[in-house]
Structure formats: structure tokens, C-alpha cells
């Protein structure tokens, strides 16, 4: 295995130059990760431009020590920082330079320590640090680097490997920390950018610069299982975003803390970083004029950039439209319950209309969904007997081609959705989905809304009842008892999977008990339990 004990200033510069070329290859992919309103729309590009400014500065410095090069990198980043992520990156380099002060060369332990300093400095620069961003990635990476160095294996490659590996995990984890990422099914763009830079640096140390020209950095997949994005039909209020205001301030005797305190109430996403003579400011504000007036009272203002974020948002929406893979056939499902909505989304439903038993969506709501999906061919899964008729009105109300697959239960809807064939045309898919719904049986366990005599059963109000494919079959007290009785009535010779979706009123402990019992009774079958969160129904059970 290749080992690198130390690198000098020249090699440090080479390493970051290679890392910058590596970042360049995926800058546009990183741009695409942006989730508005995460400040600044072109994270990849902004980080790249910041890095280029760093490299330019490093190329001009006469100081060939590691400390000297690191200083130049930090200075270049501050002068050329673009966007929120660029400014934070400049702080990372500043911290790194502080950590490497007076060092003629860098070994593994030095680098780990400097990365720690980098993370601390980066947090300090931000008035309200948010976890699940580049900051978290820098922190996690630094911790892993220090642990590796403390382990005794302070070879520079080993330390950087630990850093890169931790950065990768940290990036994958960003959606668990930041809900806006989770909803969009992407990882944090700034974090991804930092990971790419560190990975590029590692590849340089390993001597892979040559091979890198044939390869491309990996964009990390979110560790949260939510890449499929279904539209939820519910209108939201829109807030104005204001102006993204950035500039470089030159003069003497700057106090960043003082500037921060002064500007804090004038906007959001405030970053003020720099030294006595040079300070960079980034803020989202409704009144950029006020900010600039204040700045000119402190010194001279350079590289002023004021961008209308509402326009940026429009551009962003347009870009997303272009990037959204063209869907040939859209599917719309009527679903109640957060868990069930997630199940349908994860299986690729294009849009979800909220509704079900006792809360049937109107034709208008369904029509809105049909209009909103980016396809002229739409398959609708009503998933309830009482909604099929409403859904069938759609065909006469729109120019789009609409097929209703008359699913009467949630399991039928899931089976239909699974049967979707990515290669088949519209009519074939509608046919495949109709056939698939017939291959599944549904048991629903709920409570009677009123007393009745039905199918030879004397049912009292609120008594627990079991339905098989919509037909009342068993009444009793205990849901597990009813489910067991109903399964016993079915021929399960060809069955393979039982999926149990438990409702909003059923607790997890009870559902687990049902799970255990059914598994014991049917050891041959695969049993899955999922929190469906549906109202009214204690359990919806699918038998395939």
C-alpha cells in the first residue's frame, strides 16, 4: 500500500489543484442537488469558482512552505468566495491555514488537527449554523481524521482516507438532519462539494491523478429512503425570498462580530468573515440598500452582487422542470394516512390525492391532480369503492388520456402499482394493472359505525369487524382474533406474502404482537408489517 508521510507546500498546492479539477467534473451535478430555499442556487459552480480563486492566489505566492500555501489558499478563497457555500468554504480554508501556521510541511497528524481547526472556524463564521450542511460534513470528517491520527496510524493517506470515508457517510446522512433535503430526496449540495474536494485530494495522494481524467466523482445517494418525489396536492402560501446580497469590504480595523451584530436583524443567512483589512459579507435581505449604505460607512465595497431571489426561485423551478425526467405515464393514487402515502410514493406514484373511506375526494381535487402531473397519459388508482365513480368522471373533463384502474382497496392499489411495466405503453400498462389487482386479496379490520344484521351476523355499534374484499365476514372483539379467523377461511396454498398495514389508532406494540402471531401460524409465508397510519381501519392486510 502506498504511504505518504508528509507533503510540502508545493505538493499541497498540487493536491488542491487536482481536487479542484475533480470538483469541476461534477459541479453541474452538484448544482442540480440544490433545494430552494437553501441559499444560493449554484452550489457546485460557486464552490468551484471559489476554489479557482484559491489556486490562482496559491500560484502567485512566493512562499513555498505548507503554511504559506495554505495562507494563500485561504486568502484566495476569501477574495473570490461566491455564494453561501463559497463563503463557508473560505472559512474552512482559513481554519486549515490557522492549523498549519508555521509548518514547513504537513504530516497526517498536522492535517487532522488542521481539519479540526477548519471545522471550528467554519462554524464560527455563521450566525446561525444549520446541521445537515457542509458544516456537519466538515465536523464529522475532522473527527474521523483526528481519531485516525490518534490511533497511531498517522500516515497522511490513512488520515485522509478516514476523513473522506466519514465525509461520505456524513453527506449521505444530511437528509436525516435537514427535512428539506429529505423531502426532495437529495443530499446537501455544499456537503457533497466538500466531500468531492477531499476525495480529489485523496486521489492525488494515492497517485491517481492520471486515471482521474477518465472518471467522474460520485454523487452520494441519500441514506434516507425517499428519492421518489410524489406531488402532494395541497396548496401552500408563498413567501417572498428577498435579495441575496454579497460583497467584499476593504479597509482597516474591521471587527466581524460587530458587523454581524449590526446586520443580524436586517436579514437571514448572514455570514460575515475575514480579517482586519478584508471582510466578506453575505446576507438575504428585503432591503439591500440599507446593508450597502452601512458597508460604505466602514470601508470600500467591492464585488457587489445583489440578486433577486424570487427571480432565482423562478429560474430554479424552470431548471427543475428541465431536469425532472420526462415521465411518459403518470400515476395518481387516492390514499389516506402518512405511512401509506409513503408506500405509494416509494413505489413511484406521481401524485397522491388525500382521501379514502368517509373522506372521498371531489372530482375537482382529482382533476387538479390530473392537470398538475407532467404527462398527457394518466392512470388513476381510486383505492376505494366509493371513489371509483368520481374518478370515472375525469375522462370527460380533460384532454389528457385518463385510465381508471378500479382498485377498491389499498392492497389492490399497491399490487396494481407494482405491476407497472417501465417499457410497456399506456394501454398495456392499464391492462397489466387491472390484471394485477385481481391477484391480491384484501382483509380490512375496522369498527362498525352502527348496529346491523348482516350475513347472519348480529353486529353491535363500534364492534370490531373484518371484511374480505369488501364483504363483511367476521365480527368480534379482538383484531388479532378476527384476522386469524379470516386467514383460516382463505386458501393460502399459492400465497407468498402477507403485508399488514396498521392504522393511526393502532399502537406499534399491538401491531408487533399481530406480526409475531401471524408469523408463527404461517411460517412458510413472508410477513411484513408497515405503519400505514390510515384512519378508521385498525388493519389493512394484503395477501399475495
Amino acid at each position: 500500500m502506498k504511504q505518504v508521510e508528509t507533503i510540502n507546500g508545493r505538493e499541497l498546492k498540487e493536491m488542491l489543484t487536482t481536487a479542484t479539477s475533480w470538483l469541476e467534473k461534477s459541479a453541474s451535478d452538484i448544482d442540480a442537488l440544490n433545494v430552494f430555499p437553501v441559499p444560493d442556487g449554484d452550489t457546485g459552480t460557486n464552490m468551484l469558482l471559489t476554489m479557482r480563486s484559491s489556486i490562482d492566489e496559491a500560484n502567485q505566492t512566493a512562499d513555498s512552505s505548507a503554511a504559506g500555501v495554505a495562507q494563500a489558499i485561504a486568502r484566495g478563497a476569501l477574495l473570490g468566495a461566491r455564494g453561501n457555500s463559497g463563503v463557508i468554504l473560505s472559512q474552512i480554508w482559513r481554519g486549515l491555514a490557522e492549523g498549519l501556521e508555521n509548518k514547513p510541511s504537513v504530516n497526517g497528524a498536522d492535517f487532522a488537527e488542521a481539519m479540526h481547526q477548519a471545522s471550528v472556524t467554519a462554524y464560527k463564521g455563521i450566525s446561525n449554523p444549520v446541521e445537515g450542511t457542509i458544516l456537519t460534513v466538515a465536523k464529522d470528517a475532522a473527527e474521523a481524521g483526528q481519531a485516525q491520527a490518534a490511533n497511531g496510524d498517522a500516515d497522511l493517506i490513512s488520515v485522509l482516507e478516514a476523513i473522506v470515508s466519514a465525509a461520505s457517510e456524513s453527506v449521505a446522512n444530511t437528509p436525516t438532519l435537514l427535512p428539506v433535503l429529505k423531502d426532495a430526496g437529495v443530499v446537501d449540495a455544499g456537503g457533497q462539494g466538500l466531500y468531492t474536494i477531499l476525495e480529489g485530494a485523496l486521489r492525488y495522494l494515492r497517485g491517481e491523478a492520471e486515471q482521474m481524467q477518465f472518471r467522474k466523482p460520485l454523487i452520494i445517494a441519500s441514506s434516507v429512503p425517499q428519492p421518489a418525489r410524489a406531488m402532494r396536492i395541497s396548496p401552500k402560501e408563498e413567501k417572498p425570498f428577498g435579495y441575496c446580497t454579497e460583497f467584499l469590504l476593504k479597509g482597516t480595523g474591521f471587527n466581524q462580530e460587530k458587523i454581524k451584530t449590526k446586520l443580524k436583524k436586517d436579514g437571514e443567512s448572514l455570514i460575515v468573515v475575514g480579517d482586519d483589512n478584508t471582510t466578506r459579507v453575505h446576507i438575504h435581505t428585503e432591503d439591500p440598500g440599507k446593508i450597502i449604505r452601512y458597508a460604505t460607512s466602514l470601508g470600500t465595497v467591492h464585488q457587489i452582487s445583489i440578486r433577486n431571489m424570487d427571480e432565482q426561485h423562478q429560474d430554479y423551478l424552470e431548471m427543475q422542470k428541465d431536469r425532472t425526467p420526462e415521465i411518459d405515464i403518470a400515476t395518481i393514487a387516492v390514499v389516506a394516512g402518512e405511512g401509506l402515502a409513503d408506500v405509494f410514493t416509494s413505489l413511484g406514484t406521481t401524485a397522491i390525492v388525500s382521501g379514502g373511506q368517509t373522506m372521498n375526494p371531489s372530482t375537482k381535487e382529482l382533476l387538479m391532480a390530473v392537470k398538475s402531473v407532467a404527462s398527457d397519459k394518466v392512470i388513476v388508482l381510486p383505492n376505494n369503492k366509493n371513489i371509483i365513480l368520481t374518478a370515472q368522471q375525469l375522462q370527460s373533463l380533460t384532454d389528457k388520456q385518463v385510465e381508471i384502474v378500479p382498485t377498491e382497496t389499498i392492497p389492490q392499489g399497491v399490487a396494481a402499482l407494482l405491476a407497472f411495466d417501465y417499457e410497456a405503453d399506456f394501454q398495456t400498462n392499464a391492462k397489466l394493472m387491472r390484471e394485477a389487482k385481481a391477484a391480491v386479496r384484501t382483509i380490512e379490520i375496522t369498527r362498525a359505525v352502527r348496529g346491523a344484521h348482516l350475513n347472519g351476523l348480529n353486529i353491535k355499534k363500534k364492534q370490531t369487524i373484518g371484511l374480505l374484499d369488501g364483504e363483511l365476514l367476521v365480527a368480534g372483539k379482538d383484531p388479532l382474533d378476527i384476522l386469524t379467523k379470516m386467514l383460516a377461511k382463505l386458501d393460502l396454498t399459492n400465497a407468498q406474502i402477507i403485508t399488514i398495514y396498521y392504522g393511526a389508532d393502532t399502537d406499534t406494540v399491538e401491531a408487533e404482537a399481530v406480526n409475531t402471531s401471524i408469523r408463527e401460524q404461517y411460517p412458510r409465508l413472508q410477513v411484513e408489517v408497515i405503519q400505514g397510519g390510515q384512519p378508521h381501519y385498525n388493519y389493512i392486510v394484503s395477501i399475495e
Partner: protein
Amino acid sequence: MTVKIITDSLSDITSDLAGELGVTVVPLTVIFGHETFLDRVTMTTDEFYRRLTDGTVWPTTTQPTPAAFAEVYNTLAKETDEILVVTLSGKMSGTYQSALGAKNMFKGKCRIEIIDSQLVAMSLGSLVISAARKAKAGATLDELVNSVKKAMPRSHFVVYFDTLKYLAKGGRIGKAQGLLGAMLSVKPILTVKEGEMAPLTRLRSLSAGLDYLYNFAKGYPDAELVAVEHATTPDEADRLADRLSSTFPKERIIKAVISPVLGVYGGPGAMAVTVLEAEKK
């Protein structure tokens, strides 16, 4: 002189079969942490899948270096004046680029043609097998290039993944992205489309998966070759091959093991079927 054929280890051609056909297989590299292995040369497929399931280190893979191809070109150039290289899809790996890079560095007189098959696993392997047989029968390099290019759209591949876990971790998933994050246990069926993995449909059990693979192959009764592949389930593969022997003569059925390089994404339990349709006369 007989044209010499080179492919990469993603063709799933074993060293025995390669020896028999006179084909040279250039291995990709599998990396577990600090350890690197040449696919099926310094690490067996069994050992790979054992580490993949037991280990805590996530493996990655890399293309062969241009130097690895250059070495093979130089060795073969002593025996022949025409070489054909057929690589896995250039959209999945830089192997094709490495083969090209080596050709640009090559100083010998031997003619070298390189084809990006746009395929993977036995769908690539079956092209190579078919070409190697033609080469033995005396086909020229130009004839072989023409024949492989014409055979590419006739090579059909479907693969069953028993789990989505490895596909999700691997990252390089092309159009299969939409399959990720299913909350139910779902077994995807994928194919190779325009050089990338693309989803076909989703099933919920192994037996449904085996039925799908069986019915898919049965749709091409006059196939030149049928390949049945597995990752860790040789018994299931044997049973599937037996079932298929009612439709296809036994000598047209090839059994193979899915390469670790694809196994990084498919994980244990994956199974695949390739059909090379017969040439239309």
C-alpha cells in the same frame, strides 16, 4: 492468422471457458478498503460474496488500467496481426476508455478494433463466445466487427435482484434510481437499455422472479445461446436451467456466475438470464 479476442471480466466468462475459446479476459479491480483484487484472478467469486455479506467494508471497483490492456496487446501481437476487443458498456465503466487508451499507445503493427458492447454480464459474454467461435472458423477482423455490432441488439439481458440494499449503496445506478427507497420488500427486475441499467418491473418474491426469468427466455425459442447466471444461489440456477432445457437444447444453455463487479450492486441472491437471438437468415 486467427483473430485474437479480448474482453473484460464483466463478460462473466470463466478462465476455463476463456481457455477453450482462446479468449483473453482482462480483469477489473475490486477494492475492499486497503486491499485490491483482480476480479476472478486474485479473488474468487465465492470469496467476494462472502466478504460482501459478512464484511463491514464497502467494496468499490475500478476499470483495468490502459497498461493492463497494453500488456495483453503486446503479448497477443506476437501471435496474431488482428485483435478484437469487446468491452462492457462504456456508460457503466471506463474499461472501454482504457482499451482505447492502450490502443493509442500501442506501437506494434497488429490491427486492433475496439467495440463498446453497451452490454454487461453474459449479454456481453454471449457476444464474445459467438465471436470467438466465428474467429476459430476463420472469420476476419472486419467480419467479426460487423458481426458483433449486428449481434448487439439481439443480445437480451434481464436480471433479478434479491435486495435493493446494494444497488442503493453502490450509487452507480443510472435509470434504476426510481427503484430505490421502496418501503415494501420489492425485488426489481432490471435490464440494460442504451448501455445503462434500467428497471423493467418489480416483483415481491424469488419464485415470481424465477418465473419472470423463465418466461422471458421462453419468448425466444430459437435462441443461439441462453445463459443462466447466479451470484450465490447455484441450486436455484440449476433448477432454472433444468426448466429451460424443455425449451432449449442443453448445449445452447450456458451457466455462469455474476461478476463481483456487478455483484457490488446486485448483492447476494441476484440471478440473470441472457438470450442471444439467432441471426435472421
